[in-house]
């Protein structure tokens, strides 16, 4: 028997992309939908995310942003170290904090940090940054095999899925399959406007990964962001597919691929 599940990475308030991704997954007959956290940030109208998640029973875990917004912390805990990156992160955080309802903050506060699900005979660990830290960046070019391997035995799982970096990747290791599912919130710094989600297809103890590009009405999102007076730099990213902020955390290989 084969079972498919859909994994959504950071949504970053991109309600249009979330809606398109849910529609795509449902059109494939996938009913088990999961989100790996960071529901708000970057985009407009954070409260528009929650009805979509609830209507389609998307099971969520907590990202650093959700922990911060839910608990009214001082900052987003995004893990940036550069002043310019933190400047823009703070604009986004203040906006999201002010525009997230009290009820939705309670929802965010109560989300679990991690979750292990069983699909067929496969145990899958869902987490936001890494299995050990909520806001750890696990980039493909800075995550050695021997660093990732112990997580599988520590958590007794066959698959580990994370998000947080904004760029998808996968690696089959002797101990299991590691997947960064990408994000729905903004394009992948590759000059295209689409975003990505991930389908895991589990057959018994075998798991296959499909990264799914999602086209959505990015021009509407850009218009919404403009109306909400969010930074021009954020809107440029939506319109061009190139990251303009939060760049200094990128390692050499991932940074080189981008334009800025």
């Amino acid at each position, binding site marked *: 028997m084969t079972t498919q599940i859909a994994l959504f990475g950071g949504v970053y308030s991109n309600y249009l992309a979330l809606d398109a991704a849910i529609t795509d997954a449902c059109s494939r007959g996938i009913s088990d939908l999961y989100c790996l956290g960071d529901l708000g940030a970057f985009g407009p109208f954070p409260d528009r995310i929650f009805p979509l998640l609830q209507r389609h029973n998307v099971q969520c875990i907590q990202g650093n942003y959700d922990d911060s917004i839910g608990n009214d912390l001082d900052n987003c805990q995004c893990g940036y170290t550069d*002043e310019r990156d933190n400047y823009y992160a703070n604009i986004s955080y203040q906006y999201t904090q002010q525009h997230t309802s009290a009820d939705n903050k309670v929802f965010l506060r109560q989300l679990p940090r991690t979750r292990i699900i069983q699909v067929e005979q496969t145990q899958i660990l869902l987490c936001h940054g890494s299995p050990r830290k909520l806001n750890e960046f696990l980039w493909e*070019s*800075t995550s050695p095999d021997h660093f990732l391997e*112990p997580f599988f035995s520590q958590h007794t799982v066959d698959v580990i899925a994370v998000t947080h970096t904004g760029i998808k990747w996968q690696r089959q290791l002797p101990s299991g399959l590691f997947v960064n599912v990408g994000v729905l919130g903004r394009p992948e710094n590759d000059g295209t406007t689409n975003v990505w989600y991930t389908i895991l297809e589990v057959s018994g103890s075998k798991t296959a990964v499909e990264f799914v590009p999602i086209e959505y009405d990015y021009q509407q999102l850009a218009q919404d962001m403009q109306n909400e007076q969010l930074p021009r730099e954020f809107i440029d990213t939506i319109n061009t597919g190139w990251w303009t902020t939060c760049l*200094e955390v990128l*390692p*050499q*290989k991932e940074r080189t691929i981008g334009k800025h």
Partner: protein
Amino acid sequence: MATSLPTISLSHLDELWFQVSGTLCNLTCNHCFISCSPTNKNFGFLSLATIQASLEQSVKLGVKGYYFTGGEPFLNPEMTAILITTLKYGPATVLTNATVLKQEWIDALVAASRSSRYSLEFRVSIDGFDPATNDPIRGAGTFVRALAGVQQLVKAGFLPIITATRTWPIADDRTVLANFITTLKEAGYDRPRIKLLPALKIGAEAQRSSGYTDAQRVTSEMLDGLDNSQFVCEHARIVTDRGVHVCPILIEEPDSLLGTDLQQATQADYAITHGACLTCYQYGAICSNPSLGLTSGDA
């Protein structure tokens, strides 16, 4: 009543450093925290064979990334081979002054970087945005030579992280950064990455400015509720030709030598009793990538 010493345990060996050229450097910077120079041979080179043995050991310890420092790493004749080997294990970062780079080395590293799944990072030390601000610190003519090295790296496709030690008032950070960006862009580096470092008031820097006073120390109380991961010793160790030390900053301190074996050196707690530990406490993870810019505490 006796006060307990503040101690830090290693949570996980994320960063493995190598003092790959010992204390030998072609420059004699007057802010160097271990007083490296062309004649300082207190610490010797590490061979490729020694490093390969540590790399093998690091696999079992789950190390996340490898860093190479000196001295000037590229004075070690095996440096290129060392980086090529390391990229088979994980991401590598080399801290260089970029004044001795040969094109054939860069070409070999471009090829190795392209064939590896892991990133190779260059961190280039330049301490001022022009000769007038850099050369009094790093030596006559070093700004022009270092900038030429940066241009070599950029032309090869690397995005070096320019690392500048703060020898100016902290209030001037933004102006200094802006000047760095202008200089680097004019030199053809159109998206410069810059990391500012606090000065560590030990080694030559203790003579240039002032050392730490006895009161400038981390106390146990200061660790209450603190995320200890901002201390380098919480997630790093460094290999020198004498053994394994607690962090890249304190190698000249006798108590920094934790053993001859990597496994052994990961077991030991460390009492952070040195003045430089206070700078680590104040600024956090100062040795690590990525670029640091200004911390929120500075802004």
